[in-house]
């Protein structure tokens, strides 16, 4: 190993989106590879990414499509192991303010809460709206974050619909404050919404890091792949034994609910689907019309090399 001490930056460590990272940490998979990993948690994925660009962390655990952004900014990053096979975004309406909701077209002129304007929750909402013939400018998007604020906004009726992640979704569902329109935690639905497989949480790092520390990257990939496989075999009961107590929302049942819903959106073996990058690019372009899609070199943003070796080494996790 070139480097045993690795800092991983993540924005929202306790999201299901990044569950494999926590599993790998808790199960000691990183240690098994001889790594000394420290995980730094940020208030949001873009901050985590900035920390890596700035050099204060080595690897990001973040959203796949950010590697495209980074390439356009001249900061080549490469994803090398996948955690989530779908973004796990759920779009739903507020039964309180829209008790008579029938179709997506009803959302015209309404307020939709997203985690942050321009984020993948925004993308999902855009796509769903587009299918019903609505433009993004037909609604107004409110950034509500992925925490208390989002729940509060829904319950207080300040937004009419929400596009958000777990655990917000599970919480809202259980208290009856949400009616789901589109659930990309289901793989098939995700493919329908995005028009193809949409890679989600993954580990990526600046190209020079991978060039200089291929073995360290391999070790990281190994650990995550093992975690991915462990999750596929795990039940709710197993997971709550492994994750830290503080993840459990004070109510194990809620967490298990969330986990069961998210499980099928987890990557089974950490490898990137071939069409994934294209889907991601399209999603980005839908948000930012100025994005120069033709300039992107999709082959430079990810690699399945490490995952292949990892799968070879740990075929059963």
């Amino acid at each position, binding site marked *: 190993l070139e480097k045993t001490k690795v800092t991983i930056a993540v924005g929202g460590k306790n999201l299901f989106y990044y569950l494999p990272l926590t599993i790998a940490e808790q199960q000691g998979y990183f240690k098994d590879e001889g790594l000394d990993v420290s995980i730094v948690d940020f208030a949001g994925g*873009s901050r985590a990414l*900035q920390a890596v660009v700035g050099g204060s962390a080595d690897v990001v655990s973040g959203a796949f499509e950010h590697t495209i952004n980074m390439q356009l900014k001249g900061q080549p990053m490469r994803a090398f192991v996948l955690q989530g096979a779908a973004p796990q975004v759920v779009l739903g309406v507020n039964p309180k303010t829209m008790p008579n909701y029938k179709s997506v077209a009803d959302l015209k002129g309404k307020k939709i809460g997203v985690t*942050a304007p321009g*984020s993948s929750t925004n993308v999902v909402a855009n796509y769903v709206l587009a299918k019903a013939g609505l433009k993004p400018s037909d609604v107004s998007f409110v*950034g509500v*974050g992925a*925490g*208390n604020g989002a729940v*509060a*906004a829904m319950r207080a009726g300040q937004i009419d619909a929400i596009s958000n992640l777990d655990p917000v979704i599970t919480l809202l569902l259980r208290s009856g404050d949400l009616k789901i329109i589109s659930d990309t935690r289901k793989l098939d639905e995700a493919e329908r919404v995005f028009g193809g497989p949409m890679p989600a949480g993954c580990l990526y790092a600046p190209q020079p890091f991978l060039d200089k520390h291929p073995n360290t990257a391999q070790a990281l990939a190994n650990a995550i792949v093992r975690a991915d496989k462990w999750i596929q075999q795990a039940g709710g009961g197993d997971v709550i034994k492994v994750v830290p107590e503080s993840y459990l929302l004070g109510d194990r049942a809620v967490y298990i609910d969330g986990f069961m819903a998210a499980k099928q959106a987890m990557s089974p073996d950490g490898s990137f689907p071939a069409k994934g990058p294209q889907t991601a690019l399209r999603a980005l372009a839908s948000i930012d019309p100025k994005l120069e899609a033709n300039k992107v070199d999709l082959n430079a943003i990810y690699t399945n090399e490490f995952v292949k070796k990892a799968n070879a080494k740990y075929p059963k996790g």
Partner: protein
Amino acid sequence: MWNLIKPRRATLRLWQLGLLVLLFVFWHAMTKPGVIPPFMFDNDQQAAFFFGEPIKIFARIWDWFVTDADIYRHLWITLAETVLAFAIGAAGGLAGGLWLALSPMASAILEPYIKALNAMPRIILAPIFAVWFGLGIGSKVALGVTLVFFIVFFNVYQGVREVSPVILANARMLGASQRQLLRHVYLPSATSWVFSSLHTSVGLAFVGAVVGEYLGSSAGVGYLILQAEGSFDINTVMAGILVLTAFALALDALVGRIERRLMRWQPQADGGGKL
């Protein structure tokens, strides 16, 4: 030569402008890939990634104000939030500071509570504000108020207690009621304390508004900044900050103007106005 350009009243604006230009040239040189070899980062694009490039920033501002002319709505909201937060926070701080400074027992009892509130990390409480004040302009104003209030409060509180005992006794002997003391002695005497805190507050009112928008909103400059951050468009972020800064300076100048008018009675620093 140095005597000619030495800072003095006449060349003051020139110096300020010069410094501004210098700053932007420096910024440009440091961030434009290829102008100078990178030394802080190991990739010559990284400086631009974190700090933006002045030329692109100005282009962005130009777009906002002229080409697309689409910032006015956002700017208007943010300014309204700021001014409201500033006004409410300052008025509240003034009233609270006066009250507690003048009733020693109330102040003794409440002091720890106020200090505790001041030490509260407001960001974390943002969701509660959203519940109470909605996601509109209210919650941003509330956030700004919590910043401005304490700054004004502590200064007024101290300022009132620094009133010269002789002047106070004299005014009381002249028959001033508690209310008149407030209006004619405590307030004028604490004016410079109040304005000192107002200068700090102007900045923080903007911070409150922007951060509030940043935490959850559907319009405002903070919203634009948040949106740009999501797509790593640092130039837009910086453009937003610059625009707000300009307005903060304008608001501060207004405060300074009022201050100069109210503080006429003070001896001038330079020994008192000889010819």
